[in-house]
């Protein structure tokens, strides 16, 4: 069996298993190049990732990435404003799985840092830049921007050049002529 056919078969196995377990709760399923993408609501995401990780036949134990998406000016209509996209790799099946969770206006989703330790910092990064709060995260605070920064700069309605924060630092003032040091 060729590698491509092997991967294809495993992707179908994966899709069948997830569909059997989730059924109605699965918002969408799409086969991409070399991986399968599942869309779920925010509250179902933790259960789906737990299934992918803990099912011995699937074995998606390798956490690759977790990132945020802001769909506010997206050309296609989306169920909710934000997405949190998690990519896993299965050393057992040799394929990847991607889980896309839609997060609503409350911008809150359960953390998966209990399943994958690597999700800790990526969740902090999503919180920092998109303002999506992760419930149950052990240390939910900013990771890249200054802690007293206001706003979430990767949201699509945030101005690219910022709101003037990059020029809001104390400046040195030129000495008035009356106080200028004079030659002795």
């Amino acid at each position, binding site marked *: 069996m060729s590698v491509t056919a092997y991967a294809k078969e495993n992707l179908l196995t994966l899709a069948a298993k997830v569909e059997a377990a989730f059924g109605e709760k699965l918002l969408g399923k799409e086969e991409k190049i070399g991986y399968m993408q599942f869309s779920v609501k925010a509250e179902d995401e933790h259960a789906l990732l737990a299934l992918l990780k803990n099912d011995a036949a699937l074995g998606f134990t390798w956490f690759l990435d977790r990132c945020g998406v802001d769909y506010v000016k997206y050309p296609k209509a989306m169920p909710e404003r934000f997405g949190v996209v998690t990519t896993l790799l299965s050393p057992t099946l040799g394929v990847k799985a991607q889980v896309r969770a839609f997060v609503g206006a409350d911008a809150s989703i359960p953390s998966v840092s209990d399943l994958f330790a690597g999700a800790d910092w990526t969740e902090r990064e999503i919180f920092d830049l998109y303002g999506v709060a992760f419930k149950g995260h052990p240390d939910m605070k900013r990771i890249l921007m200054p*802690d*007293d*920064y206001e706003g979430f*700069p990767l949201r699509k309605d945030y101005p690219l050049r910022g*709101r003037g924060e990059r020029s809001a*630092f*104390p400046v*040195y003032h030129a*000495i008035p002529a009356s106080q200028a040091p004079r030659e002795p």
Partner: protein
Amino acid sequence: MSALEKMNDVITTRLGFAINWARSNSLWPMPFGTACCGIEMMATFMPKYDASRFGSEVLKFSPRQSDLLIVSGRISLKMMPVLQRIWEQMPEPKWCISMGACASSGGVFDNYAIIQGVDQFIPVDAYMPGCPPRPEAFIEALMSVQEKARKGEAKSDEFVSDDATRDPSLSPSYRSPDHFESVEVPGARE
């Protein structure tokens, strides 16, 4: 030894001239390399370009023992208070080189996080164009700072820095490391 021979060991000059001459040939740089310009800066201090010909091979990673700040690389929102604090810690007389497009103007990074030129917030003596500049450009900037030092000039002399009410570290927008503990984040630790 005759009196005439003893006279040969004496030169007459102004004290200020002699001190400035000594300073100009012993500029101790404080390297602040935050990006690829830092690599060119390191190359300049290596034997091929050999900044020690100009007496400035002693890199001091302590601002208290240096008199030339080299800002090489882009400075982010979070790094600017650190840079200002380092500048404040350097004893006078002190000079600053803004190395490369990013430090001088923000370069291609015209976004919310990058300072559009460090000269807005610290006095800069020499600007270096290039992305990144060649070591030759670095040496040119170093020599222009030496020229200033020989004349006893420094950009920082034109600005107030000893007035306590205008000390950046006392400004409300200055972020001290102690501040970070007190920030509350909504939705955390449920």
